């Protein structure tokens, strides 16, 4: 298969199950899934060791996309997944994460340090025990905590303590045999900064219900200061996952805090998961100049809600000016409206309303490569609705 080849349905059938063959032991793979309900990254660091970052539910199968994919390539998630990382607790990043953790029995759970505070746990205890709405990020965390608690108390021997992520913390160090050489690898959290954690905790504290306040669905904490940006180091190369971290314009928080950190691990990444669906709110030009190699392979998931579509045409231009190798898991559009009984359609129309489905089947940007001469030689494959970014508005 040629680099950056788009797999059409006919390609898929002609190569048989080739696209669903697992990577070789010495092959690194990264898959970005979206925009189902959320976005998720699945990473093979080598030697059948996998890491899942966030969750993405396929609305058709209603199961987490990374788990479905692992099964398709005959990988047992209960053994192969070693770490599950929740970058932040927004509904569209954690929905299905409890199911993932339940299935991946060998995995360590990692989340932002802001989610370990008493304020956050109070919020989880208050809302999680009284679900007023299905599928909120808080309910998902409540399920995760209950699962961890059960494993800690009942299945003590199998219990893997969770870990929290904060700027410049090494989350995992390993050594993998890539071909004839043993290459050191490590996973670092580059955020949240101390200041971001404090701001996030204050925001979370404000969401804790007050006596006499009417119950409601817990609102999201915006803007998102406490998201976990991750750097996967593989020898001299690395992968940068931008999560949903936004730029705040202040040195102590957001992207600027990462860029100005004196303790950030060195090295420039050859792959970049573009933050916050390519939005200008997460843009900082220093990311491209200081943290990424020239022409990095970059990928994003699109976003469509209400009248907001990301990335915009301007966002696409800006990103494509930084790299020729940018990809998207799909196009930001509302999927086709659901079909309903005629009388229901008529009533909706008479009310002057238009119902827009929020999520469609996720596409997948998959990159695979071997570590040769101090860098990973990536090959890009676009599955489902994934496209080169420059084709988004053409």
């Amino acid at each position, binding site marked *: 298969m040629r680099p950056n080849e788009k797999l059409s349905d006919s390609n898929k059938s002609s190569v048989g199950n080739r696209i669903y063959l697992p990577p070789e032991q010495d092959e690194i793979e990264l898959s970005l899934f979206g925009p189902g309900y959320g976005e998720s990254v699945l990473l093979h660091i080598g030697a059948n060791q996998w890491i899942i970052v966030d969750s993405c539910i396929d609305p058709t199968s209603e199961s987490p996309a990374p788990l479905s994919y692992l099964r398709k390539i005959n990988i047992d998630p209960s053994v192969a997944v070693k770490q599950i990382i929740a970058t932040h607790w927004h509904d569209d990043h954690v929905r299905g994460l409890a199911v993932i953790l339940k299935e991946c029995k060998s995995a360590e759970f990692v989340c932002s340090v802001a989610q370990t505070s008493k304020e956050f746990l109070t919020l989880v*205890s208050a809302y999680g025990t009284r679900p007023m709405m299905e599928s909120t990020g808080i309910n998902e965390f409540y399920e995760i905590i209950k699962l961890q608690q059960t494993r800690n108390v009942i299945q003590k021997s199998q219990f893997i303590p969770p870990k929290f992520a904060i700027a410049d913390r090494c989350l995992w160090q390993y050594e993998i045999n890539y071909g004839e050489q043993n290459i050191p690898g490590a996973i670092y959290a580059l955020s949240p900064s101390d200041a971001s954690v404090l701001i996030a905790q204050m925001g979370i504290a404000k969401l804790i219900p007050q006596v006499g306040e009417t119950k409601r*669905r817990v609102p999201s904490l915006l803007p998102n200061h406490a998201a976990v940006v991750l750097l996967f180091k593989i020898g001299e190369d690395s992968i940068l996952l931008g999560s949903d971290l936004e730029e705040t314009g202040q040195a102590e928080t957001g992207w600027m805090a990462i860029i100005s950190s004196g303790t950030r691990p060195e090295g420039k990444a050859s792959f970049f998961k573009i933050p916050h669906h390519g939005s200008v709110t997460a843009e900082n030009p220093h990311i491209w100049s200081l943290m990424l190699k020239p022409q990095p392979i970059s990928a994003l998931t699109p976003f469509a809600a209400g009248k907001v579509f990301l990335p915009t045409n301007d966002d696409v231009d800006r990103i494509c000016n930084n790299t020729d190798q940018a990809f998207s898991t799909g196009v930001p559009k509302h999927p086709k409206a659901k079909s309903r009984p005629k009388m229901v359609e008529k009533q909706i129309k008479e009310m002057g309303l238009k119902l827009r489905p929020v999520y469609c089947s996720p596409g997948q940007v998959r990159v695979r490569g071997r570590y040769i001469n101090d860098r990973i030689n990536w090959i890009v494959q676009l599955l489902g609705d994934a496209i080169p970014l420059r084709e988004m508005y053409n």
Partner: protein
Amino acid sequence: MLILKPKLAQYEEGIGQDPTGDPIKLITDPESLLDPKGILSCFRNVEEESRSENIEENIDRKRTINLGEFSSPVIRLPAISRRSNNMASLQKWQGYVIKVLNEALLVRLIDLTHKGPDEEAEIPIEEISQDDRGLIRPGAIFYWNIGYLDSYNGQRTRISVIRFQRLPAWSKEEIDAAEREAERLQQIIGWK
């Protein structure tokens, strides 16, 4: 005053005719006069009477009351209809308010009738009843129902009903319990 129209009178043929020729007959059980609802409670809707198939069975010919110059059987009318409006639902959603806009609500909808992806819509505030408008704010949960309303008189109307959930307020006990549970979780999670 509800009246019994000639349709009913035809069942009284042979028992006596109103000498005035007026089709209106006031025929009642004296006990009903003690009814706090008054004599009206003895009468049924004219349309209901016309549909009654067994009205003859309701005529008690042994008990009569003299209403002037003629005797008439006491008619024990069936209890007042308890029939009420029924709604046949075609589509139901649970929703919550994402954002309150100038004249509309941006909402997320979860289909409770058929599975499928969540949906979003902008619902004009004028679609929300005056009673519920005080409940509008981000995070507020509501139910939206589209269906047919079958009224007691047989009319069928297509309707849309949006009702905001009236959840109780948070109590001090609930918040104290959440804080205690948070402390317990911090101990038991087993952070490294």
